[in-house]
């Protein structure tokens, strides 16, 4: 376990179906190790989620180093496309929502 100052804690929220891949958990506090002075980015958070928190069928959550098509990533209620996507530098206490878009009607 890294020392306190080498980690950053963010709040991860899951909904629309992604929560089912995380043991039906809708909220997680996640610690991500900082890599050097630059802190850490969304790519690393996805890696941590995949390795430490995902409970089943990783192919329904990740494809390569990103999320699978159909999952929207929203940082503090803003689409991650507006914030640099994978390269967004996480800030302490950021709220990152992974939402599976619904198709039912």
């Amino acid at each position: 376990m890294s020392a306190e100052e080498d980690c950053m804690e963010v709040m991860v929220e899951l909904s629309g179906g992604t929560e089912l891949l995380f043991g039906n958990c809708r909220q997680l506090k996640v610690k991500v190790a900082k890599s050097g002075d630059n802190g850490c980015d969304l790519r690393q958070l996805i890696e941590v989620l995949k390795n430490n928190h995902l409970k089943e069928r990783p192919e329904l959550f990740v494809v390569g180093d990103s999320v699978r098509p159909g999952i929207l990533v929203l940082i503090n209620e803003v689409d991650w496309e507006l914030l640099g996507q994978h390269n967004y530098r996480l800030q302490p206490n950021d709220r990152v929502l992974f939402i599976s878009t619904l198709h039912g009607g």
Partner: protein
Amino acid sequence: RLSSRMSLSADEVSRYSRQMLCQEVGKSGQLALKATSVLIVGCGGLGCPASLYLTAAGIGRIGLVDNDVVDRSNLHRQVLHNETRVGKLKTDSAVESLKSINSNVILEPIECRLNRTNASDIISKYDIIIDGTDNPMARYLLSDVCVLNKKPLVSGSALRFDGQLTVYNYDSNTPCYRCLFPTPPPAGTVTNCNDGGVIGVIPGIIGDMQALETIKIAIGRRPSYAGQLLLFDGLNGSFKSIKLRGKSADCISCGPNATIGQELMDYEEFCGVQCNQSQSLKIL
């Protein structure tokens, strides 16, 4: 005929009096509603409440698209249908219920499944399109055709206790469905209400919100969810509004170098499934 569209009958004045009292509507707003046509694609959990409130509010002309028949398992959420209509066409059942509520509205049942050959013809005849379908193929098709025909697309979806709403293609800053989802989800990750289950009142709330966004567009106001996504989590009762990206410069549908033209594309191939297979996909 023109003059009846430009004025309100005595029945209409008394019927709509309570909404005309709202200063944002008034007589001019009521006439605007009457002059508006809306196409509702899917007479299911979303299309039923959306068409119900739009008919009651006095939208002038409403088209209803579906090719399915009423099943008993629809009745917990598709509230225009009833026990005596099981086995009958949803479009006919919907029109019968709606007509009894407001005979001033022109109701057009369109018994078909939208596809690349018929969609543009149908959609071009209406001002505002409501997406109440239940699979990504239909959603890509509808979005592409709305872009080609310059129609706002009021999109809703629901599953389990969750609901989502947004308005695509409203203006030059609003993304289309493809801007958000350039790549279709893997076929095995898509769940419809028949497979995943749904609490009936969730599409009720989202369908009502689709009606409200449509009313605002019809009376000349900006809808609240153009470029915004509403997320409703019915289990904890929370509503979130998310700021979405703008139009994507790379979008093959609405971007400056769009490649999708009136011939559209093979949506089954694009989504990697066959049309009738959507009923049997795996859960997520």
